[in-house]
């Protein structure tokens, strides 16, 4: 009876169970997604992920984050510093490894509480490490995997998750996934995943997903996010965030926690880089008109 090297797949399964027990103790609803939580028929390949993913009922996020902190989980990346969608915080635990806590799911971010309620209403359960864990219904799991595929820049038939979750689904199942997407505000994101984004051409939301599906630089991404943001307040938030310095990634690049002067220098570097990108675009645009 010793502590020894634990295979990654086993550690991930135990980590799901650990998060589930902590969520129960805290009284917070969580849905386990990806990895061993996925219905076996929805994967074309064995789960090779090394982290745990959960979606948390939005009003319980702060409570769960405090509980995780109290039980040895260290925040590696905050919600604001994570991705373009500000959707997940990344944590690390010496026993369990990496955890992504999703406060909403990219593509379902218009009404996170409503989207979670829909997923929770139709939930199923799986046993992970002999602990009963709530998971989205198989159709909702497909939607989650498809939205992830759309963000991975491999939409259409290229991403391995698209075939089992969309192409190989029956028309009735596809209709069910579309209905679920509509209910969770993910219609455009689903179109991005299934190669039908052109049906929404001209909409700000489609422009954002276009960047993820077909690629683009940071300026494209931030421009699209600015157009997709609803209302002046949200647009101002995106504009400010576009210049904000991500201390975690800066620390990773520097190899040490960044000092205040280094953060300030990075801010002006980003500002200058943004200016150069805009100038380059302007020159290219003028040349194109000649």
């Amino acid at each position, binding site marked *: *009876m010793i502590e*020894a090297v634990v295979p990654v797949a086993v550690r991930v399964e135990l980590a799901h169970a*650990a998060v589930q027990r*902590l969520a129960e103790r805290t009284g917070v609803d969580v849905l386990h997604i990806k990895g061993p939580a996925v219905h076996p028929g929805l994967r074309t390949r064995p789960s090779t992920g090394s982290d745990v993913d959960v979606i948390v009922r939005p009003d319980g996020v702060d409570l769960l984050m405090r509980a995780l902190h109290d*039980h040895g989980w260290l925040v590696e990346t905050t919600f604001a510093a994570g991705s373009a969608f500000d959707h997940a915080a990344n944590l690390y635990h010496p*026993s369990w490894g990496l955890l992504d806590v999703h406060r909403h799911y990219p593509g379902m971010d218009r009404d996170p509480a409503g989207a979670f309620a829909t997923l929770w209403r139709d939930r199923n359960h799986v046993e*992970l*490490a002999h602990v009963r864990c709530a998971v989205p219904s198989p159709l909702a799991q497909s939607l989650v995997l498809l939205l992830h595929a759309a963000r991975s820049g491999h939409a259409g038939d290229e991403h391995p998750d698209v075939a089992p979750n969309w192409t190989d689904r029956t028309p009735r199942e596809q209709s069910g996934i579309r209905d679920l997407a509509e209910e969770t505000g993910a219609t455009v994101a689903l179109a991005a995943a299934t190669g039908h984004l052109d049906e929404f051409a001209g909409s700000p939301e489609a422009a954002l997903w276009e960047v993820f599906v077909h690629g683009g630089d940071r300026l494209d991404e931030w421009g699209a996010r600015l157009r997709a943001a609803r209302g002046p307040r949200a647009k101002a938030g995106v504009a400010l965030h576009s210049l904000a310095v991500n201390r975690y990634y800066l620390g990773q690049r520097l190899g040490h926690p960044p000092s205040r002067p280094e953060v300030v220098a990075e801010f002006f570097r980003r500002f200058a880089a943004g200016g150069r990108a805009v100038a380059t675009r302007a020159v290219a645009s003028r040349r194109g008109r000649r």
Partner: protein
Amino acid sequence: MSPPADDGIVLVPATTGWVERDGVVYVAHLPDGPPLVLTGSGVVVWQALVDGGTLTDVGERVAAATGESAAGVRPGILAFVGGLADAGVVVVTPPTAHGG
């Protein structure tokens, strides 16, 4: 650690997670861990206790699985289960707590 009485009732509480993979059992107290790794005879004892019962029951199951005598395996089982109890992954209820 003192070994539990052999008519104590052993159970795996809800705060324990475990995975059996390729003949090895990985078991942890949740939510904090760390995972423990059980191999060889440890796996045999674990498989004998997960369904619960008294330690005498567990001893008889281990004896049946290994071909050893129940009396012969009992000291090892008591010591091993005592270790699991100390790690928080099993609970042994003393005989007096369940009416002996």
